[in-house]
């Protein structure tokens, strides 16, 4: 076991949590990510290991499926796999082993910063951030769009729970955008 200490995307040793009114924004570092892109001509084949990995059928366009390990659609024949970090620190290697030569797999764990928004007024916050149609935000929805010119994934985990994934290097700007929107919508 190595002895290097991790920092969160915001640069702290502990994840940041902010609450404004009834909405909470929490930094979630305990997550591992790997991207999977089917190899040319193996688009259908690649769905089988994917289903095995997440224990559910491959997600449709703009959806995610799975439970402990989930996959969300990120592009044509491309998915992002999300799993708990503690059990999947080497997620990309695990995933590659399952997919073999049906897909290209790339470690994405630290490429992203995740912020979870929870509360019954999250839509009032989201409509200040993101141009996606919030009427389509139902559990299982996953889409990429931009927030303050930052390309972000939004995953709707429940009517009062949305995860936002933004590029790790922009975590500070994304967090600032979220917090100001929370204050404004409060």
């Amino acid at each position, binding site marked *: 076991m190595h002895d290097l200490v991790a920092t969160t995307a915001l640069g702290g040793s502990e994840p940041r949590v902010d609450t404004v009114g009834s909405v909470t924004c929490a930094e979630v570092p305990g997550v591992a990510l790997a991207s999977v892109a089917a190899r040319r001509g193996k688009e259908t084949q690649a769905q089988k290991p994917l289903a095995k990995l997440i224990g559910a059928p491959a997600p449709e*366009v703009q959806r995610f499926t799975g439970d402990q390990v989930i996959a969300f659609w990120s*592009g*044509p024949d491309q998915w992002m796999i999300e799993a708990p970090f503690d059990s999947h620190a080497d997620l990309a290697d695990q995933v590659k082993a399952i997919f073999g030569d049906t897909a290209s797999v790339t470690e994405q764990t630290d490429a992203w910063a995740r912020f979870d928004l929870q509360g019954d007024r999250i839509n009032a916050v989201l409509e200040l951030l993101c*141009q996606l149609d919030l009427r389509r935000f139902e559990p299982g929805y996953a889409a*990429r*769009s*931009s927030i303050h010119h930052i*390309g972000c994934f939004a995953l709707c985990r429940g009517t009062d729970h949305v995860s936002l994934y933004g590029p790790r290097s922009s975590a500070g700007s994304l967090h600032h955008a979220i917090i100001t929107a929370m204050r404004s919508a409060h």
Partner: protein
Amino acid sequence: MIINHPLLGPRDASEFTYLGDASLIDRPDGMAENAADAFYNYAYLRDNPAGEHQELWYHEAGDRSWLVITRNTLTHEISKVELARDVARARGRSK
């Protein structure tokens, strides 16, 4: 503008980056005899129509698909949106 992405449905055009005429798909063969001429035409000359225009847009803040969009340059009406990869294949491009 709204681009009705063939996979994702309607998206604000601000998520996309524009390149230009879809004829940029038709890259000539660089090893051909007439390559100099063909590349000059390819890289520099445009139909620039006032009316229907097929053009390339990239879903930079979305799923990173390149799209071929048929749009009227007089009205901005978009009549067709296709994945550029499908269009490229249909135009005979492969490897």
